[in-house]
């Protein structure tokens, strides 16, 4: 379980204190799929980075189970919003990175890496260098690179935003499948309300800066979700309205 208690995060911007996030209280249960939506610049990435241990709150506490998060860990995988592949490694060696630093032998780590490359549909690109991939393909490799480590918690920052609708829907289903099968905790940031309602157990809506939680939606739909069902569309409508009235 991940607990955020009274989190406030300020940055120094042009020598002035700028509050990015204010009074965030949030509990994420083990095995929960949580989506965070909110306007651009409201602090979604900041929030995710603090959970990853890449950044620290100005005040408040972030705990994983009973211990305060003090730095990054392979148990909390992170998919970055921006491109993050190692440009001097080919696709396969990018995916295998986490296993390599763990000291796994070549054969074992390539076998695992290939499995996840196949899952994101890029088996035929294992020898390619990242520069030869499209934006969406790079992001898929980054997802495979994260999953291969089998982290307990997955932190994903708009991982599907560069993808076309078909690929996006396919990967959303794949992600739900992995999440159910391996009982991971997923915290997923997105701009896309449809995506949030499709994926989440719970959707947290943030206000524009300084980001605060304005509302939380429990998505009590079947796990096999129909994007065209009444309930689905109603939830979408409600969340979209809430975001639209946000100045």
């Amino acid at each position: 379980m991940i607990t955020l208690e009274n989190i406030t995060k300020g940055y120094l911007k042009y020598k002035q204190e700028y509050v990015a996030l204010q009074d965030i209280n949030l509990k994420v249960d083990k095995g929960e799929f949580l989506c965070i939506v909110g306007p651009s610049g409201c602090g979604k990435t900041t929030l995710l980075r603090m959970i990853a241990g890449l950044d620290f709150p100005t005040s408040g506490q972030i705990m994983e189970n009973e211990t305060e998060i003090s730095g990054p860990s392979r148990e909390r995988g992170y998919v970055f919003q921006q491109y993050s592949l190692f440009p001097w490694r080919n696709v396969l060696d990018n995916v295998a990175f986490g296993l390599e630093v763990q000291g796994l032998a070549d054969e074992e780590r390539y076998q695992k890496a290939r499995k996840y490359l196949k899952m994101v549909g890029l088996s035929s690109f294992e020898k390619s260098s990242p520069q030869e991939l499209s934006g969406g393909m790079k992001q898929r490799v980054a997802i495979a690179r994260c999953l291969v480590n089998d982290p307990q918690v997955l932190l994903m920052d708009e991982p599907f935003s560069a993808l076309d609708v078909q690929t996006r829907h396919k990967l959303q289903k794949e992600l739900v499948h992995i999440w159910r099968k391996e009982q991971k905790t997923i915290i997923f940031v997105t701009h896309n309300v449809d995506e949030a309602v499709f994926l989440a157990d719970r959707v947290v809506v943030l206000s524009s800066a300084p980001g605060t939680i304005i509302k939380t939606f429990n998505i009590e739909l079947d796990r096999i979700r129909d994007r065209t069902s009444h309930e689905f569309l109603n939830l979408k409508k409600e969340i979209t309205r809430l975001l639209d009235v946000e100045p």
Partner: protein
Amino acid sequence: MRKILISLILPVSVVVILTILTTFTGLIPPYFLPSPSEVIQSFETLLMNGELVQDTSLTLMRVVLSLTVSALIGIPLGILMGWSDTVRDLSSFMVGILRPIPPIAWIPFAILWFGVGLESAVFIIFIGSVFPILINTMDGVKRVDKVLLESAYTLGASDIQVLRKVAFPASLPNIVTGLKVGVGVGLMCTVAAEMIGSNSGLGYLIFTSTSMLDTGSAIVGMLTIGIIGLGADYLFSRIEKEVSW
């Protein structure tokens, strides 16, 4: 091919103009600037008596040796300075003061510390070439995309692994650039280096022929250093391309 032809236009015209000015019109007296034919004569003499080959190989050996020492010291130090703010704060003032000092100024200390001979020459060339390597390496490591370092940490890499598997390969292009600049500066230091304690090398050749007003031989030495520099530059540019992505 076209590029080669174009690049030859200027040197060929210079030789032609100099030939006209020195040999045919005598507008420039021979003690002022040797004519191209005199330079060729000196070249033939130096080639025949084996001096040129010997000087070239000795200078090359000294430069390669110095460059190796510079790389062995400059690259690790540069990586540390780029990686750790503390190390950088600790050393950048010191490096800033030492860097602008002309290598030739170190000659007395080179002699005091290493005596006359190979070590002194290597030390002088080292002083010239270590700073470009150090500074370029440091810059490379400092500028590694933060998201790559953070990716590695979230994937479970330790500090040492991030340094070895991310910061180093990411800054390799800068390191090669540092080596390229380092060779160039190192070659510039050969005259100063071979002034002390050696009786051979291209720097020595230039230095002694100049003092004996044998300007033809001096120019042969100068051009040979220039050509070595050009070759080294080409080589490192190729490596640069090889290691950049």
